[in-house]
């Protein structure tokens, strides 16, 4: 159907799109409201993954006991979105497809190495987080595809995660946001580290250099501090009145450090 209506835009909650339309920044010819499609709001566990219906609201993601227990960083990111009314209406697929690099959930989603299930005329396909975000407001979805389901891994034991953001006001888009997930091995060394940065480029970005500097090491504070210093590698932050590119680059380091400390402090036995 999206083929039939060129220049159409899917509305999955509309907490971003409607605002842009009101400002007359976006004027799609057609708006397709999918919020009424039944059965697209759920959270379930299957094969080591959490399967989240496309239309699950941020509020539901924030408060889902399953997500809080098995993938707390996603709830944490969702809880930082806008305000209660926005979280009541906005959906997980909506914010992912909107692909604003300063939004909260996309950054956590990238760090988690999640995936989306896209449906189109040609059937279904799975797109990995690392391939999903293409540019500002641009994803790997074809114009005739919609997201049916979002999948994130159940975090393994000895894993700590944290989503932190630097913003002028609580609910604002981040000046810099960091999602950090670290897993320790039985010797207490860093088995894996996944760090994503928001608001420092056209899409959320993985802080690959930082991750490399952590894996295999004992995560002393010195190691964390040293690794965080690499957070400005390979980013291209925008400038606005709340933070210049240089400031964002510095804050990327600071908040990577803070996210890592917090994540580490959260690792249970």
């Amino acid at each position, binding site marked *: 159907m999206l083929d039939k209506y060129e220049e159409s835009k899917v509305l999955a909650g509309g907490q971003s799109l409607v605002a842009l339309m009101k*400002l*007359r920044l976006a004027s799609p010819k057609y708006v397709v409201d999918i919020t009424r499609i039944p059965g697209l709001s759920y959270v379930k566990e299957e094969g080591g993954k959490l399967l989240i219906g496309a239309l699950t609201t941020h509020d539901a993601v924030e408060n889902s006991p399953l997500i809080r227990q098995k993938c707390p960083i996603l709830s944490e990111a969702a809880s930082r979105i806008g*305000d209660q009314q926005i979280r009541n209406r906005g959906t997980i697929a909506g914010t992912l497809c909107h692909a604003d690099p300063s939004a909260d959930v996309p950054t956590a989603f990238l760090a988690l190495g999640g995936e989306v299930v896209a449906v189109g005329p040609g059937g279904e396909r799975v797109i990995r987080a690392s391939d999903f975000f293409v540019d500002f407001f641009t994803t790997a979805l074809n114009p005739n595809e919609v997201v049916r389901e979002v999948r994130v891994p159940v975090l393994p034991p000895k894993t700590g995660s944290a989503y932190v953001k*630097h913003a*002028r*006001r*609580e*609910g*604002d*888009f981040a*000046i810099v946001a960091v999602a950090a997930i670290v897993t320790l091995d039985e010797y207490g060394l860093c088995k894996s580290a996944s760090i994503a940065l928001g608001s420092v480029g056209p899409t959320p970005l993985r802080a690959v250099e930082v991750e490399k500097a952590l894996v295999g090491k004992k995560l002393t504070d010195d190691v964390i501090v040293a690794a965080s210093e690499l957070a400005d590698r390979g980013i291209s932050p925008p400038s*606005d*009145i*709340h*933070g*210049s590119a240089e*400031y964002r680059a*510095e*804050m990327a380091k*600071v908040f990577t450090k803070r996210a890592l400390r917090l994540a580490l402090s959260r690792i249970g036995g």
Partner: protein
Amino acid sequence: MAEAILSKEIPVLRKWVGTPIKAKEALRLITGGGRFVDDIKIPGMLYAALLRSPYAHAKIKRIDTSKAEKLPGVVAIVTQEDVLKWCKPYPQIVPPPADKLLDYPIAVGKVRFAGEPVAAVAATDRAIAEDACELIEVEYEPLPPVLDAEEALKPDAPLVHEEVGTNLVWHEVFDYGDVDKAFAEADKVISLKLHHHRYGGAPTETHAVVADYDKGTGVLTIYCNNQMPMFCMALIGLSFNFPTDKIRIITPDIGGGFGSKILSYTYMMLISILALKAGRAVKWMEDRREYLAAGTHCNEATFYVEAAVKKDGTILGIKARTLHDVGAYLRYEPVGALLWIQVSSGPYRFKNLRMDVNAVVTNKGPVAPIRGYGRIQHLWMLERTVEQVARQLGLDPVEVKLKNYIRPEEMPYVTPSGATYDSGDYLTALKKALQMIKYEEWKKKQKELWEQGRYIGIGAALFQDSGTNNFAQVRLIYKNNPFSGQSRMAEMWMDEFGRIIVAVGSNPHGQCHETVVSQVVADVFGVTPDDVFVVPGFDSWVHGWTGHSGSYASQFAVSGIGAVLGAAKRLREKIATIAAHMLKAKPEELEFKDGKVWVKGTDRAVAFWQVANLAYRNVLELPEGVEPGLRVIYSWKAPFKLPDLEKKTVNATLTYSYQAHACVVEVDPETGKVKILDYAVVDDCGVPINPAVVEGQVHGSTMNGIAAALFEEYVYSKDGQLLSSTFMDYLFPTTLEIPDIKVDHMITPSPFTELGTKGVGEGSLVPLGAIAGAIEDALSPLGVVITDSHNPPERIYRMIREAQKRK
């Protein structure tokens, strides 16, 4: 306390005055029954949208509305041609040459700031009107914009108004005491350059107008949310080619103002012209982007300050050169550049002051009389200066302030500029505020915390909230300005059933005038506030008004209540005369109680309705010479004098409320973000009529100040584009940014007002002073000096980095 300030002329029982009764107007507002301009619907009403300039400075070469006119639903379009047909330029209050400045409700020939209206469309719905705006073709010739006051004064700077020939629209030097002597005798001279940023009122309701032209009667009714429309009437009357006797202005409930809703007279005229052209009623509701872009920002000011001081911190004198960036048009300016004269030495005792004042036009939004208008900039400058005096002398800022404060026994105190501070105890107030945040404990903790790398700072400041202004002060801008003083009109009547009704010429928007008036009147007539009906809103055909009427300059408790008391006295006397006749007693033997007039100490009484019946229907039984009816008007006039144009002194305001603020902040040294850990306010506005209303005003002005200090700034790009143009970037603080605000009160009655009341409301945004001081205190180990009134994280971060480099 009460005794001292009991009215001499009328016995005001203090039963209701001073009681925090529930606000009468709140009932309709909590049930969705409030009526705001946007709620008004008139048959056949059209909806307007404005096309605004994308350029900060450009010639308008051509406007082509033909495509827009063809759009179905479009009824009328107004551009510069229509405006020139309907309007003369607005009168200006500046001396030549700036008095030649041409200002209209819409851009004529040239746009002078991004967001200036260029065309207005009326259509059958708002969306169509907006579509039509997109179809209007405007050919611009971009001109280089000038966006900074100092740049604007350079000889080669682009001219905002060619007809004026300079961007310097007003310059005056005010010299009080012997400044040169003070500087000659100084142990030390402290010099600073300071910048006070642009922020705004940002009421939750934006500007709105419904203009309804009735062909039959020729009457033009303007529904609006202007907060002093009858003052604006002077501007409208002098520039609008429409008979003033046929203009009726109505303000229903108003969703906040904070000074920014004083300048909407340009919109009142523009939408009226649209309605006249369309021949139908037109509604215009401003959207938030328009509100933020179109000005009504506060005065942006740059200060070059020098303070002459003694080693012990005694301030001998201050010299300041100030540059006020007033934006593209004067509108209410350069009053904002003058109003420091109400608080020239702030709470301090120094007598020698030289102010070199400059008002400059730029290609930014025009400024407006925002809460604390003109005084804030000056009081903030004094506060920064005094704290730097302390720091540069190695003294405690709090000690230096207390040392230099005016003493309570010196009240009433005449300032260098001739203002008379009526009453107050600044020292006690500041100490109280400091106790409320546990100043001593924090001072002790502070040192340890610094060692742990935590930057905690304490700030304290006291600003006056000067209320009830004397318009004669504008004669110090230009001697020919034909206004002076301050006045208010109230009308009061008892209907034939004995009910009391009051109409006051004010335009309240949260000040609860219906409530406080009914409290005062209830005490005069010995009834309850529920027995007194205060006509809501404002209607120029119903409410008595003078050219000073409106709600502004913290004064209703003085001027409005002054008029109400006067009217109540007249009505009471007339009722007493008739009642005395009915009771065969002398008026002075009577007392008013429970809806009856009694002969004191007896059980003889007549009910109000019986008196009213005589007055309205049974008129042959009225005593000799008493006119039928029970309806009176009273106009109150403040006891002001004209200024001394030689000395340039004036008693610019009647009352001086004040607030002492103290706060504790923590600065995150890695990010520059400031967190408020504790905040306390001590307020003294004389005798409160309704303490709950007063406390609400204190909370609000405190939030306003916190917002300005840490969150809200109008930022322009180097091309003159407003970058903080939505609530995404103009950071209105929420419940999560504003801390709980502790408030305590002092009551020092004003000797100059009948009930000892003082105006309250502007609270003079003291947080600008207190928070700047607290940040500077927190970062004192680094020697950071706060020179800007707005301190967002990146700015603080950079100052910290630079300081660390220096070390």
